[in-house]
């Protein structure tokens, strides 16, 4: 496995293009194809596959799978056949609280949109190597969590896309509740991909993450944040309206920036420490940046788990 060259990948990503793409499928394909083309070789070739048998070459077969050594030895054209291991079950969990609908001026999508795109992209990658992928969401408009059972069928991709496309962000914080649902629904050891801005107090969700860890699940946290949240670039005084609880505050950004940034850094640190303690991979995905880091993180972790 070769880690993608980050600089090369950056050249292949254009936030403007992403913002122009309407379909979630197209966005995910743009990311995945760009990611794969940026690699020196396929991250999956040789991963989780085992040689099973030879068979005679038939015209039209992929020449990459032709065993040249055998041809040199015995003057026979044979094709190698492999068996891929598929004992990995992956769950994508997407937070749909109202804060996820925020989209800054430089972002190529809202936080929820970026989350959905990443989820679809990773689903695509996993299905390519016969991993079973499922989905768990909890929308405010629905009382029960939407759960798609993991499957490695090709049709699972369309099912996932359909479900993700219909997601909308609304309502107050519900990440803790979503994690509780996950704890109840997932029994076998699985990989959990969590897409959220984590805009909640750690007190409520620490316990849930600890339970997940205790149950043996491998959690990867993709914290999706906007540049405005990270840098607070506002200059003019304005009324700020909270997306989740509706609070309105008259803010002078110049005066409030230092305080805000320090608090936000503390917030990030708190979560970073939590995930470090729980040994959960955590990466911050910016809505105005390239998503490769998330994909790289995922591939690295998957390789580690294999």
């Amino acid at each position, binding site marked *: 496995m070769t880690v993608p060259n980050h600089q090369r990948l950056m050249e292949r990503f254009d936030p403007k293009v992403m913002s122009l793409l309407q379909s979630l499928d197209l966005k995910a394909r743009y990311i995945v194809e760009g990611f794969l083309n940026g690699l020196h070789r396929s991250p999956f070739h040789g991963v989780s596959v085992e040689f099973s048998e030879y068979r005679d070459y038939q015209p039209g077969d992929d020449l990459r799978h032709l065993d040249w050594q055998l041809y040199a030895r015995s003057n026979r054209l044979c094709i190698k056949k492999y068996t891929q291991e598929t004992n990995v079950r992956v769950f994508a969990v997407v937070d749909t609280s*109202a*804060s*996820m609908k*925020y989209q800054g001026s430089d972002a190529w999508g809202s*936080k929820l949109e970026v989350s959905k795109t990443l989820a679809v992209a990773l689903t695509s990658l996993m299905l390519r190597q016969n991993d079973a992928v499922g989905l768990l969401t909890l929308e405010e408009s629905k009382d029960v969590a939407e759960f798609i059972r993991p499957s490695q069928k090709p049709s699972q991709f369309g099912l996932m896309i359909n479900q993700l496309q219909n997601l909308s962000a609304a309502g107050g914080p519900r990440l803790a509740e979503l994690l509780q649902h996950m704890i109840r629904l997932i029994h076998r050891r699985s990989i959990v991909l969590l897409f959220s*801005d984590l*805009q909640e107090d750690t007190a409520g969700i620490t316990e849930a993450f600890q339970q997940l860890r205790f149950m043996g699940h491998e959690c990867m946290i993709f914290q999706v944040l*906007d540049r*405005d*949240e990270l840098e607070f670039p*506002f200059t*003019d*005084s*304005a*009324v*700020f*309206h*909270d*997306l*989740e*609880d509706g*609070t*309105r*505050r*008259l*803010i*002078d950004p110049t005066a*409030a920036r230092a*305080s*805000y940034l320090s*608090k*936000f850094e503390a*917030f990030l640190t708190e979560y970073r420490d939590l995930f470090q303690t729980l040994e959960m991979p955590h990466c911050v995905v910016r809505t105005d940046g390239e998503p490769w880091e998330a994909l790289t993180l995922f591939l690295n972790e998957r390789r580690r788990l294999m």
Partner: protein
Amino acid sequence: MSLLYPLMALGALALGVPIWLHLRRRDEKNLVEFPTLRFLDDQPVAQARPMWPRNWPLLLLRMLCLLLLVAAFTWPYHENEQTIIIEESRVYILDNTLSHQVGSRFSTAQDKLAEQIDAADIRVQIGVIELGSTARVLARFGDDNSAAAASVRKLSPSAERGDFVDAFRTAAEMLSTSLGAKRRIVLLSDSQTNQWLLDADTPPFLQNIEVEVLKVPDKSVDNLALSAPQARRSTRDGEAWVEVAVTVQSQGTHGPVDIVFRDRGQEVDRVSLQPVSDTAEAEAATTFGTAFAQWKTDSTNWTVAEITLDDNVDDLPGDNRVVFSIPPIREGKVDLIADSFFLRRALSPEVMKGRWNISVADQDDLLDRDEESGPDVLCLESHRLKSAKVRSLVRDALSAGRGVILFVDKITPVISGFLRDMGIEAEASQDEPVQPATFRYVYAEHPVFDPFRTAKYGNLAEVEFKNYRRLKVRDATSLAFSASGDPLMFEANAGPGRLLVFSFAFDRSDTNWPIHPTFIPFLDQALQYVRGKPATWTSFQPAESVVWELPAGVQAEQVVLSALDPATLGVAADAFEPLVVDVNERKATFALPSQVGHVAVRYDLAETLGAILDVNASPLESELRYESPPTVLAGWQRTADNDASETLASDEPTTISLSKMEALQQRNWWYLLTAAMALFMVETIWGLTAKHKQ
């Protein structure tokens, strides 16, 4: 408008909508939606969103738009000082028949009606109907009263005769859609008895309508009237004479009466009638006497005459004059294409001089005539139909409205085919001998048999037929049958012209008719019939509707009617304007003038007279007996007794309720709606511009 009116509430609601929308749609400046406001909890809490309009012009514009919309839709129902609550709907019927002219009653009623219309309250809807030969609506509900009064004042007395029920039905129809709680018909008439009795059996049709008949002055009426004259032209000793008989009707007592006869404006005779000596008998009598007159005339020219009562002063001068006319005698042209000796003799100039001008065609090429000089009648035997030219001649004559008499003396395939085209089928068994026959069944009502209903010209039943062709009807009318049921005479429906078909020839081998006394009279009658003379009925009543059929041989696109000056036979200057009527399928429909006199009929722009129509008043209008109040009216009223199922109308005054169409026809409605739409466009552009700026 009442505040409790539903549309008022809707309007108020509509005014509230733009305020609410304005506040809801207001764009807040400097508002940032932010997900991590909890990290700014040390910042002051902003005041609640102010619910106060910021863009006043936009709010006012939106309110104005909706206000105009509401006004547009409530306009037809809006009550203001001009809104009328109709309390009564009233229809005046003004009798403009001849009898109403007695003692200037018509002009009195006319003035009275005009005054009443002028003085009518605004809460009274008024309609006016003029009763002439038909009921004519002068003013409808909603028309301006001053215009209605003016149209009443413009009326001139007519010599027409009309029907009360027609006027009442028209009035009832108007009242059925009226708004007034009280509905009334006011009749301004002389209530002539015979006018009421015309429709005594009419079923009830006046429901919840009050009828007021203005009382007729109770005054005895003296009147003398001339009835329609009976005139004819006769020839004695080679000279033409006009013979006229005219009846003088009377009411009341009168002295001697002079009756003057004028031809072409010149007095030609004067007759004095003496009254009945017995006074009691005279008062009861309706016929004063009958005057006869005769004078020499030019038979080749029109006789245009009038008869007047000289120096007579009675209560109704309108019926003291009658007119008549007699057309000039014109020889009919007959083309004879037959070999029958008897036909040629019968139609020879010696026999038919002065009646028919016969041209005998020995050869087909003798028949070439132009359109103008074409014959009135084509008389031929069937064997001449072998010539295509003759067949074409017959078809052309029929299509031009000329007459054809066809004697079937021979049947060949060509003749059989031609007859089939004429709607007559030749039977196959022509060679079988037929039994001698006589006329057994005759269509006696047909005009060709008119003179033979009496024995004056002989008995047609004596005519024998030794031989005839077996024909049967396909699309024609059988006029006479033999005892065995074989048709002997037909009238075919082959075109505008008339076609008489005889299943025999005038030959002694076929029939003894040529030596029977009825032969010449019948032949003349048949020629007269197929000649297709114009309708002999040229006497009409004032304002009567006429369907005028063009006579045979006349091709015209228009019929021109004008008043006739009897002296010059030109257009009378002081009468009605000439009327031009289009001809459709050789027929023109028009209404005659409402005054007594001669009307000239001309075709297209021709100078020559086509016909003269005599317009005389109905003698019934001279019967000046009145019935007031009329008992017939009670029978016209629908009451609870004769119609229990009908519900009575409310006595409450009715406000104007407009139909959808009436509402849409209001100009203000459209103005308001258009203004509202225009303002909406301005509002939209304004809103878009403001958004773009932001």
